[in-house]
């Protein structure tokens, strides 16, 4: 990103902190590897120069807002992250008055890992049609002309659907077998804010303590289902998975179904009722017909 745009982020953060409009700005700083980004909480105006923005700023910072309910907070968001803000607003988890949103026009982020900056853009950026945040108070960069959606957007989902049920079951059994149930996918997700997750419930214990493929499958299936119509596509869950389970396939599958069946995309605004919280009396969904 152009240095003057990064400077705009810093200036805005300084202004927000100095004026007392917020007591913290959540943005990106440099990680200890010296090459990638990490979340940075800035409380003092003197420290705004630690803020950065570049193609390694993959983190979705919106989840942190739930921890700061009732506190005035500035936040740097990419377009995909901004959709998560709408999801949280729609669900009454945060108050619009509490957040000052510094939206950044985004050209995509790259695959990163510890001490590693990839060449290629993340897959989700390659089919992104939202380069300007959907909600913001201040915009950094110029709004873009968006390309139209394409059939290729859900190519990976279609490829999986083309396989036989046995192949699919075998594929997922192998993926779920690697899961060690660290729940990093849940913890990183801005839409996973339940105070008690179904998987932690003891009575009844829906998901057994045993880390085994069929128990893990309950976790992953219900996780994906709970995010249907709510996942804003930031794909942080897949990034943080230590054993590379392709969670985006599940999330994208849900996103495409919700789009096909109900014409809905998560987080485009904060008003429209999510499809699983709504209905139309005469719709035909192939259920009980």
């Amino acid at each position: 990103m152009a240095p003057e745009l990064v400077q705009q982020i810093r200036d805005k953060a300084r202004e927000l902190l100095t004026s007392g409009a917020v007591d913290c700005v959540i943005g990106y700083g440099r990680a200890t590897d010296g090459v990638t980004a990490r979340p940075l909480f800035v409380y003092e105006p003197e420290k705004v120069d630690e803020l950065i923005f570049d193609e390694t700023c993959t983190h979705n910072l919106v989840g942190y807002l739930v921890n700061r309910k009732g506190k005035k907070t500035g936040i740097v968001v990419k377009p995909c992250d901004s959709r998560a803000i709408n999801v949280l607003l729609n669900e009454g988890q945060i108050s619009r008055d509490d957040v000052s949103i510094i939206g950044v026009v985004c050209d995509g982020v790259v695959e990163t890992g510890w001490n590693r900056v990839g060449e290629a853009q993340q897959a989700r950026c390659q089919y992104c049609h939202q380069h300007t945040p959907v909600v913001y108070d201040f915009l950094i960069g110029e709004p873009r002309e968006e390309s139209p959606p394409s059939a290729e957007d859900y190519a990976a989902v279609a490829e999986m659907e083309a396989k036989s049920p046995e192949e699919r079951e075998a594929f997922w059994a192998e993926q779920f077998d690697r899961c060690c149930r660290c729940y990093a996918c849940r913890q990183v997700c801005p839409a996973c804010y339940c105070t008690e997750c179904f998987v932690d419930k003891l009575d009844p214990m829906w998901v057994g303590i045993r880390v085994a493929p069929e128990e893990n499958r309950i976790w992953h299936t219900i996780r994906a289902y709970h995010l249907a119509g709510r996942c804003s596509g930031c794909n942080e869950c897949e990034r943080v998975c230590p054993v590379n389970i392709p969670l985006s396939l599940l999330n994208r599958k849900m996103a495409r179904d919700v789009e096909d069946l109900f014409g809905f995309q998560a987080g485009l605004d904060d008003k429209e009722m999510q499809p699983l919280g709504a209905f139309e009396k005469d719709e035909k969904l192939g259920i009980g017909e």
Partner: protein
Amino acid sequence: MAVEGFSPRMVGFLCNWCSYAGADMAGTSRMSYPANIRIIRVPCSGRVDPLLIIKAFQQGADGVLIAGCHPGDCHYVEGNYYARRRLAIFRSLLEFIGIDSRRLRVEWVSAAEGKRFSNVITSFTDELVKLGPRSEVQVGA
């Protein structure tokens, strides 16, 4: 893959107001239907959290039936409309992870439809027999 003598294990979540009464009607009218279904009475088809469905499959069910009031007749006015959307999405997800979506059946059965209830169980059982037992894919050595 038909298996000789295979009797499928089915779990049925029946809405208290329509379908459970429909099953009752089938019983009191002495209509016959296969006995391999375990019936769980729920207040409304809208109560059937997909967690219950996947849990039933994990615990060894070959098929899961959800039956509720016909659209428009819900005791709670709109519970089955929500159920319809959820189950449409969830069934598609089950199919995606390799659980044949024919193993999850949703039917609207009213309190007066004892005959229909018995037909539903019979046809679902036939279908599950045709599909054969659900065998879990074994992972690793």
